[in-house]
């Protein structure tokens, strides 16, 4: 059995792309650089951001999603059945290439397996995290021209995502996080959305977490038991650690969001420790992981790194207290 230090520290997934890497992507997009250089730069960028995370003491790093421009787009480009018409506004002057489903959704080839293998080779940590956008969010953020309903589409996507998670399991991945930021946005659809997620993780024997952010967690709470995942990674710093009672009685692990990813102010370690002592009033420390609220990609890299460092230092304060009670390790749980 693999064990982790108590209160394992991790990230949600994305990390700021190094500036030089953004320049190369720009050059690639306007034809100045070729595929080969982009690939080499992507690999180097992943190595850089793994090193950022490990240097500050993150226990479970990710590859920072260096190769992904956007969380739905990336998957839609690699699953058959999608087409892109052009950018759609999300807010202000920010756009995303919203995909449209125009034919049968089909799994063609592994989507993030190579990402995992590269991360595995370059991280010194026993456990690394791979993120996958969930079937409901992909369905919700796409136009549906082909299926009779969004529900039907989500279940087709669940099969594809399920296949991918099993491929990750086959090559040795230990921890997959399904990202479903859209999960609570249409409350009437939640019953079947939860079933679609369960379908995606059916028959999977490795650890699966579920990340849901900037959402009404009281809508999610009734599904805590039903969802076949071992962990919920939720955002709490952004909401000033209100709503903590929502995890009271949670029989699974919590990925506790303690870092606000929308603020450039770096948190104090004591602030992180205080939040942890508070959540421990609701949940046993043996069932708590520690992470930022959400992906860090919108922050400057130096601030993202400083925030992770503060997070780890905050955890160290609490670990010292827990060590006095003999609590130093937890097992990596595939089931709870």
């Amino acid at each position, binding site marked *: 059995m693999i064990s982790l230090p108590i209160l394992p520290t991790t990230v949600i997934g994305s990390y700021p792309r190094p500036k030089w890497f953004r320049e190369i992507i720009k050059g690639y997009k306007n034809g100045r650089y070729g595929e080969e250089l982009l690939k080499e730069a992507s690999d180097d960028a992943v190595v850089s951001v793994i090193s950022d995370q490990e240097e500050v003491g993150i226990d479970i790093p990710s590859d920072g999603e260096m190769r992904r421009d956007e969380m739905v787009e990336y998957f839609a480009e690699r699953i058959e059945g999608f087409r892109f*018409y*052009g*950018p*759609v*506004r*999300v*807010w*202000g*002057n920010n*756009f995303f290439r*919203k995909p*449209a489903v125009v034919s049968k959704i089909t799994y063609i080839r592994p989507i993030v397996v190579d990402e995992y293998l590269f991360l595995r080779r370059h991280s010194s940590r026993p456990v690394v995290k791979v993120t996958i956008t969930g079937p409901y969010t992909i369905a*919700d*953020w796409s*136009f*549906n*021209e082909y299926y009779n309903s969004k529900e039907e589409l989500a279940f087709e996507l669940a099969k594809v995502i399920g296949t991918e998670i099993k491929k990750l399991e086959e090559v040795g991945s230990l921890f997959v996080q399904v990202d479903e930021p*859209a999960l609570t*946005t*249409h409350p009437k659809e939640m019953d079947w959305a939860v079933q679609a997620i369960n379908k995606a993780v059916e028959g999977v024997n490795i650890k699966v977490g579920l990340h849901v952010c900037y959402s009404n967690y009281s809508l999610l709470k009734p599904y805590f038991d039903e969802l076949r995942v071992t962990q919920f990674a939720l955002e709490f710093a952004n909401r000033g650690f209100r709503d903590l009672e929502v995890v009271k009685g949670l029989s699974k692990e919590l990925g506790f969001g303690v870092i606000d990813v929308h603020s450039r102010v770096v948190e104090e370690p004591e602030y992180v420790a205080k939040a942890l002592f508070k959540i421990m009033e609701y949940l046993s420390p043996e069932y708590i992981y520690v992470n930022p609220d959400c992906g860090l990609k919108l922050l400057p890299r130096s601030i993202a790194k400083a925030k992770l460092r503060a997070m780890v230092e905050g955890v160290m304060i609490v670990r010292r207290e827990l060590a006095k009670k003999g609590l130093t390790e937890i097992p990596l749980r595939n089931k709870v």
Partner: protein
Amino acid sequence: MPITFLIKFLNTELLTHKELTMSNVYSAMVGSYPRPAGLAKLINRFNSGKISSEDLELGYEKYTYRLLKFLTKLNIDYFTDGMLRWDDIFNPLINYVDGVKVNGLYRFYENNFFFRAPQVVGKVRLMDDCPIPQWFKKSSEILESVIKELGIKSRPVLKPVLPGPLTLAINSLNERYSNMRELIGDYVFEVLTPLIKALRDLGAQVIEIHEPELTYGRVDPGLKCYVAGLLGRISYDLKIKLWIQTYFGSASNALECFKFISNNIVGIDLVASRDDYLNYIHNFSYYDSLAVGVYDSRSTVLERSRIIRWYVAKFLKLRIGNLFIANNAPMDFIPEVIAVKKLRRLSKFTKWLKSKVGGVAR
């Protein structure tokens, strides 16, 4: 039913009713047009200090010209200038309202689209330097030049757009007013009324007011009717036609309050009303003006004219004075290429319909 029979049925149903000629039919575009990628790029360059505000202004004018020319060529009778300068239906207007701070991002109804919310911290009042009337003036001048360039005789109508008081109030983070009606009243009389006056004085014939909240259905009917009453009153007092555009909810949620604005143009989202529209559309019988949003601004599926014909036929029987065929909601939710295709279809369909039932040919 065999498909050929269905087609035949759909075709004949529309044409066998004498009363069809009762309505004047118009084509219309409501709300925003997807911000073109080129314009978005210019705005980014301006925001990062790479181009001047004059260059940005030229960009706005260029893209407004392109859009107005496109719409005029399509023979659309009533349209907006695409709201190309707006980020959402509240911004930048709320930047020019005293007592309001611009807060964080909030989800715009059930869309994956977010707006900056008005945070009400003091008594609300329109600032003197609000540029919205001037933007309308500029767009009107651009339209004028397009009309001249194309040699068009009967002129399309350009509608300025404003958020409705109910939608504004419900989506505000209210930290000042103890009572919702008071906030709505101040939005109406201190913010919207001076704007509507200014727009009217600059030649606006119709002002499009976005009130999705009227049909979305989270506020009580009493409050909705109160707001509709206020809108009816402004229209009467200021002698201006308002185009009250609802969306994201079934029109059945607002039938009661539409009575207060029935001298204006009521815009309904038929896509959101599809499940139950046959149960209530008789309520629109003998309306002065109704805009039926049949082209879905939230889907990339292109509407087939056969289906549109079927829906519109139901409305043609209602002896509505002016029937507008339109998109159902702002078009921010679809890519520009799709918006272009939908507007082309809308234009083609309305042209055909006018040839069958009369209406004002352009």
